[in-house]
Every structure is written in C-alpha cells, then in structure tokens.
C-alpha cells in the first residue's frame, strides 16, 4: 500500500517560516513532484519526511501509522540526495548493499538481492568500481539502487536531475521514471524545473514561500490555477 499523508506541517528557523501548514497526500505507487523556486521550503519538506528536520507541528503518516516520533533509521524511507551521496570509500556493490548490511541480512541474500537490482539497473560489470570511476548517470543509478534495495515504504528524491547535462536529460528522466515505476514505490521528488516536473510527476504540488499552493495533474494546474503564482511558476524557466 504505502500511502503517504502529511498534515499541517510547520517549521520555523528563527523568524523564518520554512513550512507553513503544509498538507499533502501521495497515493500508493504515485510519483509526486514537489516543485517550487529556491527557498520555497521543498527541501525542508523532504528533510522533515526523512526525519532529519523535526517539524514544529503537524503529522506524517504512512498507511495511517504515525511517523513523527520514528527515528531516521527506522522509517525505512529511501533517499537520494542531490549529489547522490555515494560512500567514496566503498565500491558499487558495497554502496548498494549498505542498507542490507545494517539490517543484518544474510550475506547470501545480500548477494542475490544486489544481483537482482544491478541487473534491473544495467549496472552489471561495475560492481568493483569506486564512485569516482563512474559516470554521472551510473552514479545516479547506484544511488537509486541503494535507496530501492531496502524496499522502502516511500522514496524521497532531492533534485535528481540537477547534475545531469541537457544532452542526456531526456533519457535520464525517462529511465528514472521507468525504474521508479518498475519498483512500484510511492515517491516524493523535489524539483525546480517545470519541464522536469511535467515529465516525471503523476501529480505536481506547487510550493511557494513555505506553502503548497495547489496539487494536481499538470493539465489541471494549467487549466484551473488557484493562484496566479502557480501559472507563473509552471511557465518560468
């Protein structure tokens, strides 16, 4: 199932309100894009979901289970940061297997599960390479494999296309969406580019100054914007 529900989340950093009464519902296996300009609060929202940032108020639920007091390590949320966050001292196999080793999965099972994921991701033959020996696209797939192999209840992606050049962007977008759909995982993806949001999201939540202005399918947002800022953000570059 894995339906994510966020209710009335608020977060202040001193006088600055990063999250202002944010509510969001993501259906099971849905790819939800949270889109907004820098400083709109989308990264804070992601970190709050992850458990790294503690909200001042509000609730986070997955399948009606309260997650507010569950520590980061016990949430079982997959996370891929903007720079992919691969461990530089570990090879591809060790990076992908990290989340299984922490949970004490048997070595034979680790081998099998890594093998399955690596095959799906097209990373065969790279198992012994260190992150600095990989291309940007390969690094992204390793980071995605590492996040997905733990069978997360929710996948959180922070600007997954920011390190991808324009030439290969369309291909990476397609491959990212295919992989996530293949695993059927509920996903929240933070982006700032409207074209990326349109290509990846089943639905899009438009965020501005700590608030979610509107959530919906791209067509709905264009046809029935509830705020002029929504149209402006969707058409900006």
């Amino acid at each position, binding site marked *: 199932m894995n339906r994510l529900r966020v209710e009335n989340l608020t977060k202040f950093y001193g006088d600055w309100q990063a999250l202002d009464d944010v509510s969001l519902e993501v259906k099971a296996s849905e790819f939800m894009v949270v889109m907004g300009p820098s400083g709109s609060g989308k990264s804070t929202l992601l970190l709050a979901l*992850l458990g*790294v940032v503690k909200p001042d108020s509000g609730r986070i639920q997955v399948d009606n289970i309260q997650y507010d007091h569950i520590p*980061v*390590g*016990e*949430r*079982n*949320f*997959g*996370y891929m*940061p903007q720079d992919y*966050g691969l*461990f*530089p*001292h570990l090879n591809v196999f060790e990076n992908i297997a*990290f*989340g299984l*080793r*922490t*949970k004490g999965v048997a070595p034979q099972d680790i081998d099998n599960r890594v093998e399955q994921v690596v095959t799906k991701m097209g990373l065969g033959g790279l198992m012994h390479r260190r992150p600095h020996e990989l291309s940007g696209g390969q690094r992204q797939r390793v980071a995605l494999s*590492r996040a997905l192999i*733990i069978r997360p209840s929710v996948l959180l992606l922070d600007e997954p296309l920011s390190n991808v050049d324009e030439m290969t962007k369309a291909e990476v977008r397609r491959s990212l969406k295919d992989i996530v759909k293949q695993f059927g995982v509920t996903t929240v993806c933070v982006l700032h580019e409207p074209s990326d949001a349109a290509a990846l999201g089943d639905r899009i939540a438009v965020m501005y100054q700590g608030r979610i202005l509107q959530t919906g399918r791209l067509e709905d947002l264009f046809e029935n914007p509830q705020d002029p800022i929504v149209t402006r953000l969707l058409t900006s570059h």
Partner: protein
Amino acid sequence: MRDRFSLVIFGLAGFLIVFMVTSVFYLYIAAGRTWDLVGQTLLDQRVLGALFISVSSSTLVALLAVAAVIPASYVLATRDFRGKGLIETLLVEFPQTFPPAAVGLVYLLMLGPTSPVNLAYSFIAVIIAKFYVSAPFAMSLVMRRFKEIRASGLDTIARTLGADTRQVLLWVMVPMSKTDLLAGFTLTWARAMGEVAATLIFAGAIPWRTEIFPSLVYLTSISSPQLALAASVIAATLSIAALLAFKWVAGAGR
C-alpha cells in the same frame, strides 16, 4: 612591479625555509665531527633506557590518543550544545599553548605525592604528561575530518539506510578518515617524542623508568655535551623518519 612583488614573495619563502631547516642541518654537521660517538652512544645503557622509554611511551600515547579522539570527535562533530566552542578550545587549542612546564606542575599537584593517588615519577606519569601535550594534534585533524563528513551529509545517508551509531562510526566516519587518523597518530607520536618539560616535572628522569630522550639531552647538555649531541641526532633522525614514513604511507593510500 609584478616581478618585484614575486621577488619579495620568493625571498620571504626562502628566508622561512632557511630558518627552519638550518637547525636540523646544523645538528648533523655538529655531530659530524664526532660521528663515531653516535654509534657508541647507542650502546650506552642509559641512552638505551631513554630510547626505550621514549619510543614505548610515545607509541602508547599515540595509540591512546587515536582511540580517545574518535569518540570525542564524533560527539563534537555531530552534536550541538551550549559551551561546545569552549570545550573544543580546551581540547585542541589550549593544550598547544599552555606551557608544558605548567602542565607538569598541575599534574604534580593534582596527582603527585600530596594527592591521594600518587602517580608522580612513574611510567604512567610519563604517559599522562605526554598525552595532554600531544593528543590535541590528533584531535584537531580527526575532528576537522569528521566535521567535513558531517557537512557532506554522508552520516545522515547512512542513518537513512538503517545504520546505528556504531555502524555510522565504524563503517563510514573512521574508514573515510584513515589518512587523518594516520596523520594524527604520527604527529602525536612525533610531538610526544619531543615533549620534555611536563614529563620532567611530573615524572622526573629516573633511568629505565621515566627518563626520556629529551630529558637525557637536557640533563647531560652541560656535563657531557657530546652525549647530548649524539642523543639529539638519534631523536631527530627518529622523528624525521616517522614523518617521512607517514607521508609515504599517506601518499600511497590516496
């Protein structure tokens, strides 16, 4: 104008290099006249004792320092609390500026003959005095590296993958800090080899028990300057060898 500026820069750099290197070269040049004595000195029982106490205590201090700074650096790199800046200063900068003689005096008063726990003039006193003066070198390097790892967010990523504190420390932070730990070990060892004032005051200079190489040099510099010179050559050679070995290992590890 630009050339004149370059000349000044190169001149100043040259001055510093000559100033720092001269003393080391002079030691070997001065010893050159009595080179046979260096070999003979190594067979002297008192010198052998000082060499043994110096090397064994410095190695133990460096090992203890590395073991101690890992948890301390982890706490200071990952937690924010009131007074953290003061604690960092007291752990890193202050011991490097606090006069070693005063350190020896403090320990003599605190843990000496007038205290319930008398550790003065023992091998443990050598370790304590050297540790206080030398461990900040390891602390400074390892804490800076742990803070860099923290800033990169890799410990948070490890947490999202289910890692507990032990796994974050042993699987991420320590292996990513290998070079810094090795540098910390080497610098602590080299500093401990050179430490004299705190050790002399708190531990004394009892041959084969608390007398270390620098104490031997200090105590024999008037009565037998040739012996002091030979001992200085041996101490300097050991320190240079240790530092060069570290640079070679660290270079190979990169």
